[in-house]
């Protein structure tokens, strides 16, 4: 079987359409399961009360925000190096989901911070570097939006993503060092080193749900991007009807 034929956007369009339910339905089921475990089975934290339960969304969202940036840069790089249109479209599709997860992790983080730390925002190393990660996503998306010619937009955004990936660790460590230099708030995200098994289970189930959700939503969005870009290809027109 020749798997390279799926690198053609028109062929991938129908494959993606068939794949979406296989990711979307398990994602919905795992969300329900994870939220059930998180709200009804996981015990109340003895220090933070029930406020800690926002962690079940917050931690998976933060992880997804970081993973998706690397994945996006990977796809963008493939699209640039091998001149593969579909890979660039995947990168464009992932960037929006990644930016939204990063935003979600910032918002849930500050909602969690208010009852536990008493403040909406702390210039803690992790929060600051997540904020900068969001800025990098915004840069990628706005560069792609500013260039009218799709292939030039793909290549330019790919270069920016690759530069960003090299910079992310440098930014992370400099922010961390800056924080210790300034003797900032020395708050640990989790006050206890250990975490109760149901809590961990709920978090991992929701992480899996976020992964499946991301794949499903990225496929949905990439189908729209294919339709938009390949509207002149007769086969897409045939498939889209």
């Amino acid at each position, binding site marked *: 079987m020749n798997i390279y034929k799926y690198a053609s956007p028109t062929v991938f369009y129908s494959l993606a359409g068939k794949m979406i339910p296989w990711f979307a339905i398990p994602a919905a089921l795992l969300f329900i399961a994870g939220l059930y475990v998180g709200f009804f089975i996981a015990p109340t934290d003895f220090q933070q009360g029930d406020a800690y339960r926002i962690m079940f969304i917050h931690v998976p969202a933060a992880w997804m925000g970081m993973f998706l940036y690397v994945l996006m840069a990977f796809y963008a790089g493939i699209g640039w190096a091998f001149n593969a249109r579909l890979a660039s479209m995947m990168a464009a599709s992932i960037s929006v989901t990644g930016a939204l997860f990063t935003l979600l992790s910032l918002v849930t983080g500050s909602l969690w911070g208010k009852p536990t730390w008493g403040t909406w925002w702390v210039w803690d190393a992790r929060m600051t570097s997540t904020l900068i990660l969001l800025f990098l996503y915004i840069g990628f998306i706005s*560069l792609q939006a*500013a260039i009218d010619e799709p292939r030039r937009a793909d290549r330019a955004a790919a270069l920016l993503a690759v530069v960003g990936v090299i910079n992310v660790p440098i930014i992370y460590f400099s922010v961390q060092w800056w924080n210790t230099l300034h003797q900032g708030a020395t708050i640990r995200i989790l006050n206890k080193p250990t975490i109760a098994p149901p809590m961990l289970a709920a978090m991992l189930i929701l992480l899996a749900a976020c992964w499946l959700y991301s794949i499903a939503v990225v496929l949905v969005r990439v189908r729209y991007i294919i339709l938009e870009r390949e509207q002149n290809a007769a086969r897409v027109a045939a498939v889209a009807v």
Partner: protein
Amino acid sequence: MLTMFRWIVVRDLTLAWRRRADVLSTLFFFVIVVSLFPLGIGPESQLLRSIAPGVVWVAALLASMLSLSRVFENDYHDGTLEQMLLTPQPLLLVVLGKVLAQWLVSEVPLAVVAPLLGVQFDLEPRTLWILFLSLLIGTPVLSLIGSIGAALTLGLRGGGVLIAVLILPLYVPVLIFGAGAVDASIMSGNIQANMLLLAAFFLLALVFAPWATSAALRISLE
């Protein structure tokens, strides 16, 4: 190859000399932005002294954004850049030459004026010296990283604003350690570590950024 490099630098310096107003306006922008902060925050010298490193450094980042959007712009519009891409000499040399000229013309004056602005913020002579040195080591990194953004946004609508969105997040490490060095000097802390890290960023950027800028130029001009 070196003749080519020298030719690019001399040419860009001559062009900058003929358009002195452009260069000066960036410098005045820097001076004005820094001078606005005491007006907005209040004249207490204790407070001013503690915000001075950050204010001067952030203003330097913004000022270098302004001048960077012009690095390739004019050559792009009159077609010179395309001819430069076609020369048999490596594109890296063109990029390095243009970045060096941009640094000499637009960034070195910032570093020279900065101590004067530091006096407004009641900094001590030793700290002024550190401020000058940190800007002198840090601004080449700004030019090198910024040239990637300048090449990517060539000929785009609203390129000047876009380059800021793309590049300012990448400036974070330089800002942290540049302002950190001056901060450390105010609180008599460890300056050397900050300076060495700035120098390390400079070397890293010197190796990788011209390569990325050349690739970006090829993307923008194909």
